[in-house]
Structures are given as structure tokens and as C-alpha cells.
């Protein structure tokens, strides 16, 4: 009887442990963050990404959702999946992203679907970067729209077509040292304003 109880407990524990590991790694669901988290106005990052200092949950989640990510000395990655009102970013709504100068040698913002892949569309509007900002008026004050159809405003555009529930990843390459030391103070994080949603959504 005791052996039976022990085996049942062991089996159920192992089953739950297996499932919770897959969930924490983001194999099932978005994954979990337990330490090293950096949050600047809803843009989430982790300074231990890519390094041996990362805890096992971060390492597993990055392997699943950010394989071949660089350490913070070379690049940092921020992800956000909600707008300024806290609502989930989704294909059925239009958004305006506004930002200022970024504390890095080069930066980009790219849209990914919930599976961490580029959305399956042919719009050739997958990201907005420093090059776009410079050509659109200057890297010190820039904006672009995210929507399923081309922006009517004439500003830059990133297509969310076929993106479903998506997120935006801000990459900062060769980040400034003072930004790494104090990200919440140095980074003027881009805002995400919801412009409106389609009736069907």
C-alpha cells in the first residue's frame, strides 16, 4: 500500500514537473520570468539573456523564443505585447508607435506573431529601424504605424497582417554603458497608442 501511494505520488509529481517545465520554457504558452527582469514602461527584457548567468527558466525560454540571442554587451532585446492602455496587441487594431533617440549604436522594432515568427504576409513591412527613422525626419523623434493595411497617415508602417495576437521586439545593438547600468532611467521607451479597431474585432 505504501509503495503504491509512493509510486502514484512520484508519477503525478513527475508529470506535473514535466508539464510545468515546458510551460516555463514557453514550449506551451508564453513562458515564465523569475529573475533578471528589466521592465521599462511595459517593454520587458532580461539582462542575463545569452549568458551563463541566466537562470534555467530564462535559458530554456530564450532557447525556445530567442535562440542565438546575444549578451547585453552586444545587444539587448525588449518585447511588449500590450498597448499603453494595457490591452493585448492584435491584428484587428491599428497602433501608432512613437519614440525618441535610443541609447544604442543601432536599433530596430520588429513584429512577431504569438509563435515568435514573422507574420506570414508579403507586405515587405516587417520592421522599423534607425535607418527608417533617420530618413523620415530624424532619430531624435520618430513615429510609425502598425496595422493590417498600409498606413494612410504617410508615416512609416509595419504590417500586422496575419499577425494575430502579436508582440513587438525592440533590439538595441551596441547599447550605451549607462543604459545597461540603469535602463529605467536612460531608456525613453516607445509608446504604443491604439488608434482604433475594426468592427469585426
Amino acid at each position, binding site marked *: *500500500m*505504501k509503495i503504491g*501511494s*509512493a*509510486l*502514484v*505520488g*512520484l*508519477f*503525478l*509529481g*513527475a*508529470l*506535473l*514537473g*514535466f508539464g*510545468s*517545465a*515546458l510551460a*516555463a*520554457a514557453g*514550449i506551451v504558452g508564453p513562458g515564465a520570468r523569475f529573475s533578471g527582469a528589466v521592465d521599462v514602461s511595459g517593454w520587458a527584457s532580461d539582462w542575463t539573456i*545569452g*549568458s*551563463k548567468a541566466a537562470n*534555467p*527558466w530564462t*535559458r*530554456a525560454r*530564450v*532557447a*525556445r*523564443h*530567442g*535562440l*542565438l*540571442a*546575444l*549578451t547585453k*554587451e*552586444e*545587444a539587448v532585446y525588449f518585447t511588449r505585447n500590450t498597448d499603453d492602455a494595457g490591452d493585448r496587441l492584435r491584428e484587428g487594431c491599428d497602433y501608432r508607435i512613437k519614440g525618441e533617440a535610443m541609447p544604442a*549604436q*543601432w536599433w*530596430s522594432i*520588429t513584429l*512577431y506573431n504569438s509563435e*515568435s*515568427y*514573422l*507574420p506570414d*504576409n508579403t507586405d515587405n513591412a*516587417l*520592421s522599423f*529601424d534607425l*535607418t527608417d527613422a533617420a530618413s523620415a525626419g530624424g532619430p531624435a523623434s520618430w513615429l510609425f504605424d502598425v496595422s493590417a493595411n498600409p498606413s494612410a497617415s504617410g508615416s512609416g508602417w509595419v504590417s500586422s497582417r496575419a499577425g494575430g495576437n502579436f508582440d513587438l*521586439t525592440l*533590439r538595441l*545593438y*551596441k547599447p550605451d554603458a549607462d543604459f545597461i547600468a540603469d535602463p529605467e532611467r536612460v531608456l525613453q521607451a516607445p509608446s504604443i497608442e491604439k488608434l482604433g479597431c475594426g468592427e469585426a474585432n
Partner: protein
Amino acid sequence: MRLPFIGLATFVIGFVAAHFIVLNALPDYIMSKARERMTGSGIAVHAWQMSPRVTPETQTIVRPSPDLAYAICIIDVSGGPVSLTVPTWPEYGSLSIFDASTDNVYAGSLDARLPDAPGVRRIVVALEGQAVEPAEGVDVVVLAKPEALALIRRLAPSQGLYDAAAALVPVSTCGPA
């Protein structure tokens, strides 16, 4: 010991053991699967392979950057150290090494605008215990396991810049030292 406590104790042991065994095994598993996919698609070991320009149709790994041109070399140092030489780039660029557990164990700039830009970045990748002759201007990367990936990133948001980045791959090396 009472039955419920025995069951609870083994439940906790099973949970913790399974959770951390799976969690610690996942990075190695995912990396080995990525290597398998690459070799399965025809990428040879110890040869630079330019990735197609990143689009939704060509993406093979999660979260690729469409603004970058990537080239990859699959490394196996079980037979001895591997030497890499990679030309610099007039914009942002990096040469990075990822070990079998997905850790970014090396990142060197390829940005030719930097004051200490080497012109050609040279590194030697070796397994722990392998002898490597120190040489000026050559970075040495030591691995705990023989499998690794080398990745070149070059800022190339246009087709013209992608083509220019691709033209540098034939003059880059990745092979036994």
C-alpha cells in the same frame, strides 16, 4: 509514515526532479535540433553558409531580424580547434559563437567604423584541454562541449547591402586550425 505523507513526499520529489531535468535539458535539445535542421537542409560543417534574406517565407529560426544579413557556420571541435576569419563591415556587424547549450560565449564586433577595428576578425574555437598557440590579434574561445555555431550578423536592410554582405562570405573562413 502515514500514506498521504508518503504520497505527498514522492509527489514533491517527482515534481522537482522532472521540472529541473527537463528545464536543463531543453537548451541542449533545442540547439541540437537546430543543428540537425541546418545539416538536414544541406549546410556543411565548417563552411560559412549565407542565409537567404529574412522574410516570412525564408525564416528558419524564431525571431529573425529582417534588417540583418546572417551567415552561419556549424562548428565541431572534437577533432581539434577551428579557426575563423571574417572581414569587417562598414555598418553594425558582429561575429558570435554559441555553444551547445545556446550560451553566447563570444561576440566580436565587425564594425569597421570603430577605432580598433581589425579589418579581419580572427578567432580560434577549441575544446577545453586542446592546445592553442596564442597569436596576436586572434581571440580564443574555449568550449565545454565540441558542438557550436558561429553566426555573422551584418546590418543590411536593403537588397543591395544584403548582396554586399553575401559577397564577403566566400572570403571568410571556418575550418580546422
